[in-house]
Structures are given as structure tokens and as C-alpha cells.
């Protein structure tokens, strides 16, 4: 609680550890970036190939869901430590929103 600040000098091993960690993360981000581009390509191809809308819509929605997960875990650090509570609340929120929309779609507008 005190307000004096501590300056921490990193040791050589710590430094290398962090470096390795970072490059690993970087590789992860590049991979998910590549996957995302690829998924986008699939989506575009599906539309360009003139498949039936009944096929295209679910495919695009599915790909979108995958993209969201990749985005969250690949770029927004949800996989890092200390994000359990964040994940829990996000998924609870999504779950509630999903139930709501599902119910409205099925019982009001169908």
C-alpha cells in the first residue's frame, strides 16, 4: 500500500526467459493471423462460388464464431494467466444474450 516505487532490475536469465516467452507469443499471433485470413478466404469463396444461401449462411456464421475465439485467445490474451474471471463473465454474457436472441427469434418472429 505504500507509495514508494520499487525499481526491479532483471537478471540475465529472467531477460532470456521473457524473450523466449515473447517470441513464442508472437509466433502464436502470426499463426492465428494466417488462419484468420484463410477462413476469410473460405467465406469469400463460398459466396463467389454461388452456393445456396442455406449453405453459405451457416458456414459464414460458423467461421465468424471461430474468428471470435481466435481473436479473443490469439490477440486479446484471454489464454494468459489471470483471465479466468474475465472469460467466465464474457461467456456468461454471451450465453445470456444468445438465449435472449434465440427466444425472441423463435417465439416472437417465427
Amino acid at each position, binding site marked *: *500500500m505504500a*507509495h514508494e516505487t520499487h525499481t526491479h532490475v532483471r537478471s540475465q536469465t529472467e531477460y532470456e526467459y521473457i524473450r523466449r516467452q515473447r517470441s513464442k507469443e508472437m509466433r502464436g499471433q502470426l499463426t492465428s493471423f494466417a488462419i484468420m485470413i484463410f477462413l476469410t478466404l473460405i467465406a469469400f469463396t463460398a459466396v463467389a462460388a454461388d452456393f445456396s444461401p442455406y449453405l453459405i449462411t451457416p458456414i459464414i456464421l460458423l467461421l465468424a464464431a471461430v474468428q471470435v475465439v481466435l481473436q479473443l485467445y490469439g490477440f486479446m490474451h484471454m489464454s494468459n494467466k489471470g483471465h479466468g474471471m474475465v472469460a467466465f463473465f464474457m461467456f456468461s*454474457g454471451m450465453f445470456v444474450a444468445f438465449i*435472449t436472441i434465440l*427466444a*425472441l427469434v*423463435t*417465439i*416472437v418472429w417465427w
Partner: protein
Amino acid sequence: MSSIAQKKGFGAAMWDYLTTVDHKKIAHLYLASGGIFFLIGGIEAMLIRIQLMKAGNDFLSAGTYNEVLTMHGTTMIFLAAMPILLAFMNAIMPLQIGARDVAFPFLNSLGFWLFFFGGVFLNLSWFLGGAPDAGWTNYASLAIASEGHGIDFYALGLTISGFGTLISGINFLVTIINMRAPGMTYMRMPLFTWTTFVASALILLAFPPLTVGVFFMVFDRMFGANFFDVTMGGNTIIWEHLFWIFGHPEVYILILPAFGIFSEIFAIFSRKRLFGYTALVFATILIGFYGFMVWAHHMFTVGLGPTANAVFALATMIIAVPTGVKIFNWLLTIWGGSISFTTPMMYAIGFIPSFVAGGVTGVMQAIAPLDYQLHDSYFIVAHFHYVIVGGVVLAILAATHLYWPKMFGTMLSEKLGKWTFWLFFIGFHLTFFIQHFLGLMGMPRRVYTFGADQGWDLFNAISSVGAVFMAAGVIILLVNVVMTSIKNERVGNDPWGDGRTLEWAIASPPPFYNFAQTPLVRGLDTFWIEKMEGNKEGMVYAEPLEEIHMPNGSFVPVVMSFGLFVASFGALYNMDGDKGWTIPVIIIGLAITFGSMLFRSLKDDLGFHISKEELMRDVKGGKSDGLK
């Protein structure tokens, strides 16, 4: 900011409360204003019961009756029950987790002032052309047809106070996740903290649908948006969905903290660890989740179709399971305990049969075909008063007695407390038990009168007599509060003698920084563990005595909320279309709000430090009250 206790003048005390960011003082504000709204709602209830006392009464006209009924429900739910629970959450939860304050003290104050100005705005409708009259549920077909500005007061007032509640909910979530003392793992948190946590999560997820619904309503009325207007291609049922997607979680926002309060009381006054702590925690979380999947049980008769009705009926019945788990855990906590029948304990024991009765009628209503009979009858009125009064209000009264010493440093009279309990408890059952039968006899709810040939006279008269008992109980409570404050006999840390959790380990009321040293938590019922091991200080410490960093008070939240209050008047009268002054008023109001936000963002306020010497002086002097 000296820590030397000094008598302050009225003006200084007032300014202190207007600018405070201390969770304990904000709790006082919530309790006082929630209490006043509770009295206003209570007076409205008495008016309703006077009107229905006999057949064909003309005490209130039909139109006035609708306004009184609507304002009674709206006030009690949004401006009384919820804020008073927020008062106890504010006062106690940070102490229970060993924190010095909530995570965002400034937002805490902002949350209060938004609620306050929203509530005042709503109630000003009485003097400005008539209160809302479409029921607390404000169903759209009725609301859109309502003349005058009543519904606009409802929509704008609830928008403002809803923002306040949402802010408080988020604040509590962050506080509980981040500010627990060392050793206070999730599974060591007292149940009142747990229920605060889950209720806050429900606030976070449930208020947005209400905000959306109310926004649609404002747009329909202000700009002719036609979201709910069937003749223009809108859909009036969408309001019902949005309202109940919020509304059912809302009833759990009310009852879960009540469960938390009773859990504390059962453990304290049975002098036993809570039976099945883990089950109680998981039942709380489960109830929170299920709460979002049952809203359409309020709409069985709308015509959603058999499939939807069946799904929601089943989902609703499932909620009774975790609730039952809780009831059994409480019973087994009392079982074999060494019980002391204090006032809070009487409420807790009275709560069990009352709430079970409300739960049973709830499950009855969840049977969709049966609900076609029960819906919109006095049976429904009996049900929700059994759960809300028998659950939430009993918890509020119990907590008032239980936590009064911790909040104000004096003990309410036990003798008067028991008078309040018996009068209120008897009055409550007298008023509402008989309404089940009125419902079964066919009396519809929300009617302003009935005929002498309908056979409802006697039961309505009995119901009105019960209301008098409840009013007498509340008046005695007020007398109790006044007398206790005048006597002003200060009490020590643990006035009930059997406190188990951290709030009882420090002074009553606590110093404004709460804990001079952050405690180290070694298990569930921290204070009890230390007491049992003979630790005179009541806690072990996680840190040496050091300087404490505290936030400065601020007047900005009041100004920010006031701006919205002003802008709302502009928006409200702008609907008339013939008032040129409304646009400038909206602009001025919003300028006040955004200006104060800008001020807050640009001005650095780094808070202040309490020096080690001051803390030492406090600790040595045994300073036991919270005055700065």
C-alpha cells in the same frame, strides 16, 4: 484531514456527505434515501388498502388509484428494496473481505447520486401533472396510450437511476474480484459477500435489456418511433419480453442478498458454522444462471404457444431445486446450534416458512395451464408479496437490527425490535395470506374497486387491517431509531458477541480507512477462528503498519447526476412540441454532465496519505468511532 475526532456543524456534516466517497457513508446515504422511499411506498400501500377496505369505496378515483398502484410498485422495487440492499452491501461487503474501500470510490458515489436524482425525478411526477399509471411493469400497449407525462417520468427516471445501479453492480464485482485481503479465497468469502457478488453479476447482465426497453419506450413517445405500436407495424409483446428478461433476474437481485443476510444471521445466532457452505455457494450461482432462463413464465397467457410455455414452465420449476437446497442448509445450520433469539434471528426464523409459502405458490404458477387461472388475479399479488415481503423486506428489517451497531455504533433496542417484528410479521400474514383466496375467488389484480355482491368484502377488510399492523411495526422501528440515536450508547467491535466474519473484528463504526493493517485470512469465519484461538486482537495482519493511501472526497458526482436530472426535464417537456425552452434545457443539462466529466478527467486528484504516526495514535487511543 486530521484524525482527531471533532464535533462538526450541520453544514459541515452535510457537505461531508455530499462529497463523500467512503463506502460506509455512501451506505448511510443509501439507507436514508432508500428508507424515505420505503416510507413513501408504504404510504401509497396504505392508500391502496384504504381504497380496497370496503366494496364500492370512492376514497381514490380510478385514475388516481392507477397512479398510486404504479408508483407503489415502482418505488418499492427500484427506489426502496434495491437501494436499501445496496446500503448493506456498501456498508458490510468491503469489511467482510478485508478491504479499505470499494474498487472505485468515486463511481460508488456517482452510482448513489444517479439513483437519488432518478428517484426524485420519478416522484416529482406527482406534482407535475400526474404520476405514471401503467403498472410497475409498464406494458407498452397501456403505456403508449397513457396521457400526460406520467410514463415519461417513469422512463426517464428509471433510465437515470438504472445507470446508477449498473455502476454500483460493476463496482462491487471489481471490488470482490480484486480487493480481497490475502488469504480470502473465493471459497472463504462470507455468504453475504457471495450473494452480493452474484447479485452484482445479475445487475450487470439484466439491466441492459431494461435500458434497451426503456429507450425504445422513450423513442416511441418522444420521436414517434413505433417500436411497440402494432398499428404501425411494431410489436407490443417485445416490451414484455425485454421487461421480463430484466424483471425475473431483478427479483433474484433482490432475494439473493436477502439470502446472504439470513445466512449470516443463522450462523451467528446458532453459534455454528454454516451447514453446507459449498452447497450454499453453488446454489447461489446456479440460481443466478437459471434466473435468466425463466422470464416467459410471466407471459404464459400471452399466447406464446404450447412449446414455449412448456419449456419455460419446466425451467421455472428447476429453480425451486437450488432454492430448496438453501432452505435445508439453513435448517441444518440451526439444528443442534445454541440458538439465541435476538431480533435478527426472529426475522430469520420467520423468513423460512414465509418464503417457502411464496416458493410453493411460485411453483404452482409455473404450471402453465394452472397459471391461466391464476394469472392477473390476487393470487399473484399474494405470491410476490410472500417472496418480496416475506423474503426481501424481512431481510432488510433483520439487517437493520443486525448491522445498525456496525454502521452507527449504537445498538437498537431489542425490546422495541421484537415489537416491530411481531407486529410486522402478524400484519404481513394477515394482509397477504387471505389474498390467495381472494385470487382463487376470482378477484382480479389492479382493480380500483369491487362490488358488494361479489363476496370479497370480508377478506379485503381483513387484508386492510393487516396493513395497519405492518404500519405500526414500521413506526415502532422509527421510534427505536430515534431513541437509540438520542441515547447514543456506544458499543464495541462485536456487540452481538458471536460475530464470525471480519466486519466484527474492527470498531463500530470502523475508522474511515477500515483496517489500519490489512488482515490475513486463515479460513472461513475469520474472526471466529481468531477468537477461538484466543487472539485478543481478533485478526492477524498481512502487513506491517504503514502509511495508507486514501482517495479525496468529491462533489463532482452530485453535479454530474444533477446535469442528467436537468436534461431529463427538457427531454420530458420537449415531447409537447410547443415549448421552445426545452432544447436549451437539454443542452444545459448535458453540458453540466459532460463538463463535470471533463473536469474530472483533466484534474489530477492523487488522494492523500494517512501517516504512520496518525495510525499509531488511533490504534493506541483505541479510537472506536469513524469520525475523521
